[in-house]
């Protein structure tokens, strides 16, 4: 993975027991589900609901880490921690960066080019 690449495909492949078909299936599920979760996260941030922010960030972190999106997963963890602590200023600071990084992940995985790395 280069510094600029949002997804480590080799790590993702290892996480799925080197099953390429399964990885393709999981990426499709991730690309379908993630925009909905990101919208829910944005609504929770807008509502100032720290617990809802933590819940959504936690849910996103699981699939991001499975698919090798380390940077986005780290930001999700920081967001989850801030949300659980009720640190809304920190939530506000982190959420924009998280959403931006997650969108990069989605763009990278929506491009069939990532399959070439398998």
């Amino acid at each position, binding site marked *: 993975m280069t510094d600029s690449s949002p997804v480590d495909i080799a790590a993702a492949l290892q996480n799925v027991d080197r099953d390429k078909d399964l990885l393709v299936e999981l990426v499709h599920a991730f690309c379908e589900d993630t925009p909905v979760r990101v919208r829910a996260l944005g609504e929770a941030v807008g509502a100032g609901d720290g617990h809802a922010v933590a819940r959504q960030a*936690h849910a996103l972190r699981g699939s991001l880490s499975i698919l090798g999106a380390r940077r986005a997963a780290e930001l999700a963890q920081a967001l989850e921690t801030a949300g659980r602590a009720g640190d809304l200023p920190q939530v506000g600071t982190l959420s924009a960066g998280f959403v931006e990084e997650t969108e990069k992940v989605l763009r990278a995985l929506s491009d069939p080019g990532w399959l070439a790395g398998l």
Partner: protein
Amino acid sequence: MADDDRVASRLLESVLTRWGYEVVAVGDGDAALAALSGGDHPPMAILDWMMPGLTGLEVCQRVRQQDGLSHLYLVVLTSKDSTEDLVAALEAGADDHLTKPFQPAELRARVRVGERVARLHQSLKDRVTALERALADVTRLQGLLPICMYCKKIRADGNYWQQVDGYIAEHSGATFTHGICPDCRETRVKPEIERIRQSHQRPPAGERP
């Protein structure tokens, strides 16, 4: 297995199925508890910590409180990895925990541990059932048995009088082979043989003087 995240859930289901396990996948804690409380419940569960409804830890606590479920092997799956979290999971009743994203080889090794424990438990349960059944047979022969003072028949269920050998054969694992004891040989068999012999030696009725 219970996980509300489709990616994690599908990954778990896929690798577990490939390894030969029959998987029941649910998406929240309440459904997990219902699946584990059902009649034909699985012997092992992998539960995500944070789920809608009951959390994985709450499912562990409820399972441990239910009669007949305390033996289930429970693994909590979590992205939490601090010592406090591990202790909390074990104190809630989990047998093991696994940090997400898990490495398939580690998951497989931990599931095999669970399988060994579940098999051992099943084996012990089968043995206890067999012993209880054997004990029940013994107990049935330990009660007060009404027996006829003269013919020695035993009064069985339904006021039915039964030969003692038939009764014991029905109420235990014993089978009988029939023979003649020395006393009965003297008091019954020999007189009977003598009676038969004499009946053969007696002259026909027309030849009597």
